[in-house]
């Protein structure tokens, strides 16, 4: 386990200086800039039916903040600077005080992004330097450089190299102990004459070379070959340690093709190439609106992230397996602002042919009270690998230009295969308000309970957006199609 490593003082000073310089300089340079600050507190009170070490309390408390700043058209070359700084102080997620049988707080700052870029809209080439994500390659962070050029009006190609920052809960922290990575990507984007028609496709090859001698647990372990059947875990651990660390090469693809407002295809896939070729995950969907009142989507999912390592412990109810699932949903517009939606899915596990299925129906009304209110009510049935459940949910939302209020209620009956029946009940209430055109506040409450636990949580956030750019307009009424 790793404890949180806060930024060192010199690093912090450097960052704040850089930030202050940019923030103050931006207006002076009359550049285009925008950003937001966000802060919040999350608190949850959990009471378990089974006491643990003499206590049935399992509370959470975290305070968080973030700063995002983006300045464009800097200097004669119209470069861009982006800073994304986040911090979370978790009162119960720092470290473990084993003697005190308690968790102690920790502060987890992260530098999500710090980069200088030359964007495409300022020319036919692109470069980025610093720490930045690469969406076209599905790379969360790259501490290095990225360059690209336009190969025509619709095609861009690029390459990047750098370090893959250490991730913890999806966060990137420091420079130390990071894998090397490099890759190349291409992007095709065809924006039609209006927003209803567009095509986006990106594909990338990403190579990562581990630098650590020891792979931390939970990270991806590459294997040259699968374990033989019957091999014990210990044998697999031993075998693991003897294996040299391999490079990891994967091919990422993402396509979104919308030839018209009535039709849309999406595709997302990760295909591992090295150390062996296999499909890690694939998602494909097709949407079509047949009539003004009827539309539907078909989707397919295939995941197999654990091809390389499978635990053979017999106690596992569900050993690792590939999983394939098909989904279908249909929407029928009954009236203006009234829609009936049905979603169904069926999935099969490769190893044991266990299947899971679900079917849900939901009635949605979005044009109540001249667009002020939206509401839905739905019910469904779900069969998972080890339970079958009945689900009912309903909710309502209220929209004005300044306030959004959401309320949802979910009730389930879980019939476990082990004979246990649970009745989860989850109630959510959320209030978001535009205190001003730039100031946004939100308040969220959740109450969840079943026979095992009772949880109440509250979240409060306050965000402020600033900048010289035009602020995104605010919504004035409930969404027309209710795609929540």
């Amino acid at each position, binding site marked *: *386990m790793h404890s949180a490593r806060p930024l060192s003082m010199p690093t912090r000073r450097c960052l704040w200086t850089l930030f202050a310089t940019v923030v103050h300089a931006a207006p002076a340079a009359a550049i285009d800039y925008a950003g937001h600050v966000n802060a*919040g507190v999350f608190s949850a009170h959990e009471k378990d039916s089974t006491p643990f070490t003499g206590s049935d309390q399992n509370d959470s408390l975290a305070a968080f903040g973030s700063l995002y700043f983006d300045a464009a058209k800097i200097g004669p070359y119209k470069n861009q600077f982006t800073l994304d700084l986040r911090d979370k102080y978790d009162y119960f997620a720092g470290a473990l005080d084993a003697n005190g049988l308690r968790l102690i707080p920790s502060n987890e700052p992260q530098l999500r992004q710090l980069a200088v870029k030359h964007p495409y*809209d300022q020319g036919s080439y692109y470069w980025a330097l610093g720490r930045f994500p690469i*969406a076209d390659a599905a790379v969360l962070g790259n501490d290095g450089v990225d360059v690209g050029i336009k190969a025509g009006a619709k095609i861009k190609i690029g390459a990047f190299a750098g370090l893959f920052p250490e991730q913890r809960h999806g966060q990137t922290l420091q420079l130390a102990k990071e894998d090397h990575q490099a890759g190349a990507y291409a992007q095709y984007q065809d*924006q039609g004459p209006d*927003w209803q028609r567009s095509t986006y496709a990106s594909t990338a090859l990403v190579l990562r070379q581990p630098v650590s001698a020891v792979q931390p647990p939970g990270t991806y372990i590459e294997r040259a070959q699968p374990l033989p059947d019957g091999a014990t875990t210990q044998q697999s651990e031993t075998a693991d340690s003897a294996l040299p660390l391999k490079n990891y090469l994967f091919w990422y693809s993402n396509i979104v093709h919308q030839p018209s407002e009535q039709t849309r295809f999406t595709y*997302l896939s990760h295909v591992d190439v090295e150390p062996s070729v296999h499909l890690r995950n*694939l998602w494909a969907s097709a949407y079509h609106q047949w009539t003004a009142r009827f539309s539907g989507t078909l989707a397919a999912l295939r995941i197999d992230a654990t091809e390389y390592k*499978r635990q053979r412990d017999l106690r596992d109810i569900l050993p690792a397996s590939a999983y394939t699932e098909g989904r279908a949903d249909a929407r029928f517009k009954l009236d203006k602002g009234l829609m009936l939606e049905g979603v169904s899915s069926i999935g099969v596990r490769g190893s044991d042919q266990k299947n899971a299925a679900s079917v849900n129906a939901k009635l949605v009304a979005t044009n109540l009270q001249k667009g002020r209110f939206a509401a839905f009510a739905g019910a469904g049935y779900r069969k998972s690998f080890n339970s079958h459940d009945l689900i009912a949910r309903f909710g309502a939302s209220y929209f004005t230009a300044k306030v959004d209020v959401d309320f949802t209620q979910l009730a389930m009956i879980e019939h476990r295969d082990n004979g246990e029946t649970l009745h989860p009940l989850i109630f959510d209430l959320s209030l978001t308000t535009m205190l001003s055109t730039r100031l946004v506040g939100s308040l969220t409450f959740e109450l969840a309970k079943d026979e095992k636990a009772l949880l109440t949580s509250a979240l409060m956030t306050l965000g402020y957006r600033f900048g010289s750019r035009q602020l995104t307009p605010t919504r004035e009424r409930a969404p*027309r199609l209710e795609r929540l």
Partner: protein
Amino acid sequence: MLRLLTACCIMLSCWGAPALADPAKDLGSESAKEGDSSEGVFNKLLAPGPLMFAHRSLEHGACLKCHDAGKGVPDAKCLTCHSDIQQSIRKRKSFHAMTKQACIGCHSDHKGRDLNSTVVSSKTFDHSKTGFILHGAHAKIKCVKCHTEKRGATMSRSSDTRFFGKTQTCNGCHRKDDIHAFPPQWAAKECSACHSDATWKGAEFDHKKATGYALIGDHAKIKCATCHLPKGKASAKYKFPELPKQQCLTCHVDFHKDHLQGKFQGGNCLQCHSQGQETWKITHFDHQITGFSLLGKHQTTACVDCHKPPKGAKTDLKHANFTGLKSDCASCHKDFHGFRGETSPKLGVLAQCKTCHTEAGWKADLHFNHNTSTNYPIDGKHIGVKCFGCHVPLVKGQKAPDTARKYEFPELAGKTCETCHASPHLKESAEVFRKNKCSTCHTTQGWKSVNLNGSGFNHSTQTRFPLTGDHNKISCASCHLKNGKSVYKFANADKQFCVSCHVTVHSNQFEPKLVAASCATCHDTVAFANLRYNHNESRFKITGAHEKLATDCVKCHKPSASMLPIKPPKPAGKFIFEHPQSGFCVDCHKNIHKEQFSPASASDNCLQCHNVKSFKDLSGFDHDKTRFKLVEAHADIKTNCAKCHVKTHQMLETTPPRPAAKFRFDAPGVDGSAGGFCLSCHKNVHIGQFDEQFAKKPCLSCHNQKTFGQRSPFDHSQTKFQIVGAHAKFKNNCGECHVKTNKLLATSPPKPANQFLFAFESRGYCDACHAKEHVKQFHPPLAGQVCTTCHNQNNFAKGLTFNHHKLARFDVKNKHVEVKCVECHTPTTATYKQSPHHPKGKFIFDGLLTKDCALCHKDPHAGRFGPKCSTCHTDAGWGATAGFHKDFILTGVHRLLDCNQCHTDNRQLSGTGDDCKLCHQKDDVHLGSQPDCKSCHIQQFWSAPKFQHAMTDFPLRGAHRLLECGECHAHGVYQGKSAECVSCHLEDSLLVSFPNHKQAGFSQCETCHNQFQFRGKK
């Protein structure tokens, strides 16, 4: 010395006693219970005996309270305690004041507790000494009857009668017996004022003397309480202040109420009633007091017959209404005669019944004789006529209803019979006869008995028919006797009665007017054949050349085929002529002008042009009576008819035949109205020059007869173009618009024609004069509009009014309304011909319908959202959008983001809002195995998902809270993971050698370990 010893002993016995007495006893207390009779010691030693119960407290050293050492028991000592007796003595009232004996003379003591020192013997006690002598009943009753008070509060013998203190007033004992309930001032009086103690009842009370009100009759018999206590003691009343005013009504109910006359009201019932009678009922009432003496039949009439009760009430005296009647007869009796104030010179006021009638009977003793009482004696047939046969007036010759009676006949002096009788003689003759009285010829014996003898009757003067000529020679019966009946009434007075006797033979011969006329119009009574007709009274006056035919009637009245029914029959002359409208000319003279004149002018009335003096003389013709008046220039040729009325080829049927002149002139397009004949003589040079409306108009619309060239003032409002605004300045300068053309008028000499026909009528004619400035400047729908759509004649350039909503393809509303025209319609390089310094604005916008807002507004989205800004924005302002971000709700953190953070490189994300992973694929720690991100995560805070691990089989506690999801769910499997420790920690257990978990078969980790501290047992 002895006194001293006695005093000492007394003092000792009194003072020393307490020391020997019961210490518990309260010495001298009067609250000691009755029965407590312990004697004082010294009293025992020195006194002759115990004191009585009431005095027992004095035994304990209070001897001197009663005794005066050596002087016995003085009264003063007793009265010191018995203060009430002392007071009575002082007031010299009561027994004790009267008696001269000392207290101890009657009241002794020291004889024991039970001594009753106030025993009074009812037999021996002289009550008079108390001041209250017992008389009458008082002397017979027992003491305790009056002395009812008990000692009560006294300490001894509380049940004994207390004789002291009794009041001597009657009220003191007899208050409860007081039935009078006298008011306070009367209550103070003693009963003895009226009553005696000999007997209570039979009080001596003089009501009159005491109250001023004498009790008479029944009043004397009734009980006092009847008046004074009508409803018991609570209603006691002894004062009647209202009695003087209300009198009887003070006690008695006003039975009659408003049914009595005023003077009988007020309570003085004694006016009719009396107290002395046995009953209230009135048996005899002197009616005289009412002012109306009952005489004659009134005496026998029942009271209620006159004094009728109100409607609905019983008809008895009780309910009779004694008001409302007056002494005059009409108050009760209906005036049969219907007099209305008439006055007879002989009888006086007729409405007074007494004038004729008496109370002896209505019809009996009637004091009326028509012959002597009126100015009109009745005789003959009048005698049999009932009164109302005359005393009802005539209305329009008919008798009026009986209710309208008439008794005054002032006209009788003059009219006599006609006052009542309508004269049968007709008006014409009545005037003659008006001078005569009916009685001149008629009598009251009957109308038909007429006596003319000696009556001086002159037919000529007294009738409407003077007898002349042969009429004088015939007998009366020749006329007045028809079929055996006398006839004196003749009709046809308007025709002088001729036809009443003579039959007319001219019925079909003459015109109706002449037929209706009298025969005397032509004939006389001397000889019927003598004709004396004044032709000038007919419709054809004989003048001029006709005069020579005046005596030769048959020249005109030629014999017809009809024969007159006379003897011998003769052919009837023609007297009916069919052409009065022509002055009867054509009845004799032939009309030769039939086709020569127009129908409007054609007439058989030759006199319109000709005259009876000379047929050829036409100087009398008034041309102004035709449809064409000769005025101005035409007046000059007035006498030269042939200038206009030229000879035609048609020949007149004259002798010899002559060519007919032209008299028929048609006014083209006009129905013969004046001024429309110009073209009959003058040539129309304006053919094709005017539009249809004016081409049809007569020449005089513009020209005049004075001088053709000079045009009359023309009202341009008749045209389709109104001269207003700026055009008004050209009003008198027609040539500015009506310019000369190349065409020549067919005048002499030829002249260029002015333009009067203009094109572009549909466009208000503007284009006819004004250059087409907006060619290619407007789009076709607007270009086709008339100029007045925007411009007006008052101010062509500045007075622009344009409805953008209706006429343009772009509806200006909301924010666009505030924009000035030139901001959108920017100036171009082109200029107006008429105003070269004014550049033309841009009004044609290519792509308006396709480019939408981008036509004017720069698209900050660089077209990536398509060309239609209105998809999201409205013209209410850029900030407000309609359904912004329609499908993906921006909430939570997403609301803070800049557009470019999601739409990197202006990427379109339409339809992908539901798929979180399409943006967050790089953030996916689940390696794609959980495609529904929103099923667990919320937009407000990614790290706090909705997924509650506590609601699974394995709540994350302890160290497990610090793990990455993949550390347990390393294989992408998020459901079905075993909650048993060993499912993850099996290898950990296998690594432990001491103790060797495998050998020991340890499988329940939680037995020794916990989630905080796995290593080493807990």
